[in-house]
């Protein structure tokens, strides 16, 4: 801001507050008086605009028009306003964040943990929206086996994980047919790899052993069967035996 602008601002403030008149300002700043005078006078002229009033006839006419408009277009009582809408949006964002965080956190839950039910429910959603439910079920079965490994020293929790595993296995059994077999075999083969690693000391065996037994072509339905011997817990050695038509 230049010197002149500072002086102008000071004079305008003084005039606005009634601290000094135009002449007093000009006397205080003789060097800039010629420049200041028209501007200060203009400011005064603009303020004279406050004298403008609409005619009484117009005010009455416009009021009548407004009253009629309000009668024709009554305001509906809104049960929420914009601030409530904003609050609801914020609340929804917080809830969504909690849901996402909670679901992510629940994935590490083990049987008996507070968030385990959340984990199972999230798996149901996962399976429901999955484009490939069979792969999802295999992944879920792997989870149950990993859980059994983790809670092997607690029979109650172990039983819960085992029950979950049985449910997935039942589902897989019902899903296997000639079409899905092609899909499921390579997936199961892939699934075998991690369990061979020494990080799973309790269940070193493959997740699913598959034995494909060729069958005569006359077999009406080449429905696969899965049998998983679980004779002694926690040693789990599930096996899938699948009868296939002879080519």
């Amino acid at each position, binding site marked *: 801001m230049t010197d002149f602008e500072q002086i102008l601002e000071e004079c305008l403030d003084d005039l*606005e507050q009634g601290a000094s008149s135009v002449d007093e300002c000009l006397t205080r700043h003789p060097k800039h008086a010629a420049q200041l005078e028209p501007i200060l006078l203009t400011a005064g002229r603009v303020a*004279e605009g406050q004298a403008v009033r*609409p005619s009484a006839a117009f005010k009455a006419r416009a009021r009548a028009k407004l009253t009629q408009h309000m009668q024709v277009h009554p305001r509906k009582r809104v049960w929420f*306003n914009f*601030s409530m809408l904003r609050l609801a949006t914020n609340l929804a964002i917080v809830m969504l964040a909690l849901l996402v965080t909670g679901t992510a956190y629940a994935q590490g839950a083990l049987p008996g943990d507070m968030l385990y039910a959340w984990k199972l429910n999230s798996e149901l959603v996962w399976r429901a929206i999955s484009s490939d439910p069979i792969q999802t079920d295999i992944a879920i079965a792997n989870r149950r086996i990993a859980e059994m490994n983790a809670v092997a020293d607690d029979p109650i929790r172990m039983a819960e994980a085992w029950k979950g595993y049985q449910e997935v296995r039942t589902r897989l059994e019902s899903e296997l047919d000639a079409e899905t077999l092609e899909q499921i075999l390579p997936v199961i083969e892939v699934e075998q790899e991690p369990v061979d690693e020494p990080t799973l000391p309790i269940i070193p065996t493959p997740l699913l052993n598959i034995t494909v037994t060729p069958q005569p072509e006359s077999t009406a339905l080449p429905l696969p069967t899965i049998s998983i011997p679980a004779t002694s817990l926690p040693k789990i050695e599930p096996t899938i035996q699948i009868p296939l038509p002879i080519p």
Partner: protein
Amino acid sequence: MREHQATSTDSSLPDEARLVRHAKSGNSEAFAELYDACVERVYRYIYFRVTDDIAAEDITSQVFLKAWENLDRYQIGSSPFVAWLYTIARNLVIDFYRAKKGSVPLDEITALPAKEQSPVEEVELRFSLQAMRDGLQALTDEQQQVLILKYIAGLPNENIAKLMNKREGAVRALQMRALQTLSKYMKEKDYL
């Protein structure tokens, strides 16, 4: 000038929040009270933004119809109610010029001075106001806005800054530039 400032700086109406709350819930009488309290200020604002008195009246009337319809958008306490009306007025003025594609020549002056004055004083005042009104048309939209809101509507710079979505310093600078431009115009036309 001192007198004008004293009467214009009360930008919020007494009991404004209660009236707005009632109006929001559908009470037309409360809104009519708001109309009574604000109509002169809104008219004055529009009067200096257009050169046609009929248009000034018409736009003033529209401001209140629009305000009634969009009352939910006004947040009580966020700014004075009249400041919200100025925003509506400004948009309607812009629409007016868009529709007209230019300013409309002035036919007659119907606005009345506030006080009893002699015929000579009244003519002088009307002449002066008309000169200023013409001068304002020579400014940019923002320059008109800051001068009218500051010196005619009497809003404090803080409210003007909010209304125009600018910093107070920027508003002050804009006011000074606008005054300088307007004073040049007034001098050229021998209005000063």
